[in-house]
C-alpha cells in the first residue's frame, strides 16, 4: 500500500513520456517511447543483467568500504583534536574537487577493472558518511556528558556507550545519502574507462545510436539505486530510532 503513490507516479511519468513521443513524432534514436524501451529491455535482459551485476558489485563493495572508512574517520576526528586540526581541512578540500576530475587519475592508477569504480564510489560517499556521523558525535547532549563525568566514566566508555549510540541517527542519514550517491560514483568510473557495467553499456549504446538500449540501461540503474536506497533505509531504521 505504501508504494501505491510511487507506482502511480511511475505510471503518470510513462504516460507523459508516451504522449510526448506520440505528439512530436521524434525519431526513435532521439527519444524512444516507453513501449520500445520495454521491448528492448526484455530482448536484452541477459546483457543488461550481466552489466547490472558488475555495477551492483562495484556499488556494494564501494558502499561497504566507504561507510567503514567514513565511520572510522568520524570516530578518529571526534576523539582526537590533532586529527581535527590535520585532517578536517583536507576532508573539505577533497570534497571541493569534482569527482569527475579524479576519475581519469583513478583509472590510471587502479586500471580498467573493478577497483577504480569501487574507489570512485568510496570517494563520493566518504564525505557524507564522515561528516554526518562526525556532526552527531560532536553534538552529544551535554547533559549526558555531565552525568557521565559525575559517574567517573573513562572517555573510552563515554565514546562507546554514549557518544556513538547518540550519533547513530546521524550516521543513518549519512548512510542513506551514501546509498544514493554510490551508484553515481560507480557509473562515473565506468564512463571514464571500463569494459563492463551499466555506465559502460549506456555509453556504448549511445555511441551506436541505440538510444532505446541506453534508456533501458539507465532505467535499470535508476531502479537499482532506488532498491538500494530502500534496502539501506530499512537496514538503518533501528539506528535512526524509527519503528521502535
Amino acid at each position, binding site marked *: 500500500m505504501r508504494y501505491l503513490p510511487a507506482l502511480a507516479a511511475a505510471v503518470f511519468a510513462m504516460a507523459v513520456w508516451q504522449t510526448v513521443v506520440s505528439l512530436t513524432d521524434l525519431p526513435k534514436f532521439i527519444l524512444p517511447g516507453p513501449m520500445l524501451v520495454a521491448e528492448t529491455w526484455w530482448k536484452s535482459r541477459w546483457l543488461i543483467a550481466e552489466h547490472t551485476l558488475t555495477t551492483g558489485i562495484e556499488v556494494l563493495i564501494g558502499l561497504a568500504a566507504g561507510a567503514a572508512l567514513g565511520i572510522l574517520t568520524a570516530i578518529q576526528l571526534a576523539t582526537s583534536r590533532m586529527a581535527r586540526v590535520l585532517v578536517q581541512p583536507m576532508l573539505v578540500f577533497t570534497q571541493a574537487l569534482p569527482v569527475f576530475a579524479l576519475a581519469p587519475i583513478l583509472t590510471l592508477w587502479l586500471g580498467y577493472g573493478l577497483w577504480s569504480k569501487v574507489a570512485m564510489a568510496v570517494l563520493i560517499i566518504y564525505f557524507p558518511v564522515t561528516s554526518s556521523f562526525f556532526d552527531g558525535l560532536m553534538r552529544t*547532549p551535554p*547533559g*549526558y556528558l*555531565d*552525568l*557521565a*563525568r*559525575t*559517574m*567517573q*566514566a*573513562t572517555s573510552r*566508555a*563515554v565514546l562507546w*556507550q*554514549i557518544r556513538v*549510540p*547518540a550519533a*547513530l541517527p546521524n550516521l543513518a542519514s549519512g548512510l542513506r545519502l551514501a546509498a544514493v550517491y554510490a551508484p553515481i560514483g560507480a557509473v562515473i568510473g565506468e564512463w571514464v574507462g571500463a569494459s563492463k557495467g551499466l555506465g559502460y553499456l549506456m555509453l556504448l549504446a549511445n555511441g551506436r545510436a541505440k538510444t532505446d538500449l541506453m534508456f533501458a540501461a539507465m532505467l535499470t540503474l535508476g531502479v537499482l539505486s532506488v532498491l538500494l536506497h530502500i534496502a539501506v533505509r530499512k537496514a538503518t531504521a533501528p539506528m535512526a*530510532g524509527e519503528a*521502535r
Partner: protein
Amino acid sequence: MKPAPEITFVGQALLGSGQLFAPLSLTLLAGRWTCLLGGSGVGKSTVLRLMAGLQTDAVFDGTIRASDGADLAPRISYMAQDDLLLPWATVTQNITLGARLRGEKPDQARLKRLLERVRLTDHAQKKPAQLSGGQRQRVALARTLMEDKPVILLDEPFSALDAQTRAEMQELAVELLAGRTVLLVTHDPGEAARLGHAIMVMEQSGLTHCPPPETEVPRQVDDLETLAAQASLLRLLRGEAA
C-alpha cells in the same frame, strides 16, 4: 555507603568582566537536605555544578571542601531537571549506567532492591519512551541511588513534573536519600519549605539563611508552619521584607 560528610563552599564566581555571584559561604550539613532557592540566573545551578566538578561558564574563585578532607568528586551523585535517560537503553541499563561507564559489574541484588523501591520492577526491560514523566524521573532517582554516593546534588529534579507526581517524588526522594548530604537547587519556595533541613535564598548579593519549619521532612503540604515558611520565602524572592 561511606559516611556523609559536611561540605563547605566558599567563594565567588566571575562571568566575563562582571560577577555572577558575590562571595558567599554555603555549608551543606552532613546527612541533611540543604535547599538553595533562587530565581533564574542568580547562579544557583553554577554553585551545584562547581560542587559536582562540572564545566561552567563562570570562573570560580574560592574553595569547596568536605569536612573529612577527602576528595569530593568520586563521592557525589548528580540528578538534573532533565532525567537524562539514554533513549536507546532499557530501564535496567539506565539504572546501571554508572557501573557500565566505569567498566564494573553492576550489583544485581542492589538493582533488584532499587527497582522494587521505586516500583519499576515490571518496567525493567522497557525503554524510556514507554514510560510516563513520573516513571522516568523514578528511573533517574534509582540511577542516582545505584551509585550509592554519600553526597547527592539535585538540580531542580522535580520541576518538570505535574503537581501530584512532584509531591510523590519529593516524598520518595526524602525516604530513599535519608542519611546522605543533599543539595537541592530549586526555584520553588513550596519545595524548599517541604524538604529543607536548611534553606538558603540566593541572590546576586549573597545568601540569606531562612529558618526552616521545625517539623520533620518531608513536611505535609498543608502543614501551617510549612505554608507560612513557603509564603515568607516567596516574599523574600520577590524582594519584599520577610
